[in-house]
């Protein structure tokens, strides 16, 4: 037995039996950033959600990333616990990953650059991947700036690799993509929730900050969907120190958008986007 007890060592681990006991003794540790399994046992179930309907419950570290494939009609709530989170999101159709978030169409089709309640997140194929169905973050979102980069974070914070405390959003998105069998080709421009940017008359991109602690945004999956989320500093964040607080995710079985929802008929362009989506799924036998 060695006397060299590592700083994190809690017990003897010289034998397999000891090492196994040590490993198993770690399992019940509760920390801030972790998934909750089964999801119904989440200690943070939103008040308006039936715990039995939950399909995903997790707190994502800042910086950190997560990813999930969810069914059509899944409602995904993101919460900025401390006011310091920034959720960079990329969406792919789970039916065909070549169909994915198209930020230009997401802004152009609704004639609206800023994300808010009712905004459709469109693919490049004339369909709705997901809809922003609730925004309790005061519209502090951004579709212009994307994620921070490795080189950018090395220059600004001294490091940007995924394992560092100042990880670049792109490094995290690439890992999330890899876990879904996707590569750099599959990581297009993203949208950012909880940190806002507005365009001035001369085109300048002005930082508007965040929605504060407890801000939430809800997305509904309009088709079987793979969501990649990087929780990392926003590229225009003016704070000297790297900013990324924990991000909470709860997702539950709900309903895809229907003509009863106000955003379905909010503009003729959106109505046709939902019609295209519904017909595409109808033909595949997906309700």
């Amino acid at each position: 037995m060695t006397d060299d007890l590592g700083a994190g060592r809690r017990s003897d681990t010289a034998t397999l039996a000891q090492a196994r006991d040590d490993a198993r003794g770690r399992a019940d540790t509760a920390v801030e950033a972790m998934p909750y399994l089964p999801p119904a046992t989440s200690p943070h179930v939103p008040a308006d959600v039936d715990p039995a309907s939950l399909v995903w419950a997790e707190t994502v570290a800042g910086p950190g990333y997560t990813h999930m494939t969810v069914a059509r009609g899944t409602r995904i709530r993101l919460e900025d616990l401390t006011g310091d989170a920034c959720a960079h999101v990329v969406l792919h159709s789970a039916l065909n990953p070549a169909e994915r978030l198209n930020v230009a169409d997401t802004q152009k089709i609704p004639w609206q650059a800023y994300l808010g309640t009712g905004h459709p997140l469109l693919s490049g194929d004339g369909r709705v991947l997901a809809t922003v169905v609730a925004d309790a973050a005061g519209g502090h979102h951004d579709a212009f700036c994307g994620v921070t980069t490795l080189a950018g974070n090395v220059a600004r914070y001294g490091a940007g690799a995924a394992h560092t405390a100042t990880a670049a959003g792109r490094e995290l998105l690439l890992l999330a993509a890899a876990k879904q069998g996707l590569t750099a080709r599959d990581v297009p421009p993203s949208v950012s929730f909880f940190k806002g940017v507005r365009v001035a008359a001369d085109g300048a991109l002005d930082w508007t900050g965040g929605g504060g602690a407890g801000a939430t945004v809800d997305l509904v999956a309009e088709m079987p969907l793979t969501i990649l989320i990087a929780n990392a500093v926003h590229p225009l964040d003016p704070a000297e120190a790297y900013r990324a607080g924990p991000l909470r995710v709860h997702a539950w079985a709900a309903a895809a958008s229907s003509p009863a929802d106000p955003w379905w008929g909010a503009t003729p362009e959106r109505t046709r986007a939902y019609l295209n989506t519904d017909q595409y799924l109808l033909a595949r036998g997906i309700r």
Partner: protein
Amino acid sequence: MTVTWATHEADYFDRSEPLVAGVVVDDHEIAPREGWSLVVRAGRVLTLVDVGGNQSGDCLIYDAADRDVRYSVQATLAAQRNAYLVDGAVLRDQEGHPLMTIVGNEVDRQDTIGGACSKESNTLRYGHHTLFHHACRENFLLEGARHGLGPRDLVSNINWFMNVPVEPDGTLGIVDGMSGPGRRVALRAERDVLVVLSNCPQVNNPCNDFNPTPLRVVVTDPAVAA
């Protein structure tokens, strides 16, 4: 409604000349509605001429040696902290590294937030009767396929000579252009790049003045006298 699909020749056309001096290494006219692609070697300058005026040239840029490295509107805009492209703008890849630089520009501002038209998005924007109108995404897919690129390689693009203002409430869209016959933009390659262009076929909005016209592409090498 009468639809003008394209005008191939007119007395107001101005084919102009390269914006940056040097030996001409490539000179091609992209017919209305067509796609085109070419590799521009590092240091050379691509001049795009708006021959008929207010003709959108939809453009994607890839590192010629590694097509996974491609133009990123978001890295470009975040770095310059401005939504519009003007003279001196650096066009960056997803990691923030320069692909090309605008070294000459005769239009107030160039667009990179409007994206490309597609048959599918036409159905959203103008109704299902436009599904069979040719579109930039078709040109990108066809030209891209010649280089091994597919739909996973298409990202938000640049629209040379197109005008997409953003109003204070976030309203954005394509309005009448600010270009004219013979106006130019010049792009210097910061490394060997593959440039994929679509001479926009759109006839349902003002991006082509409702009349697609030719674009001229001239590549010069400033290191070699003409």
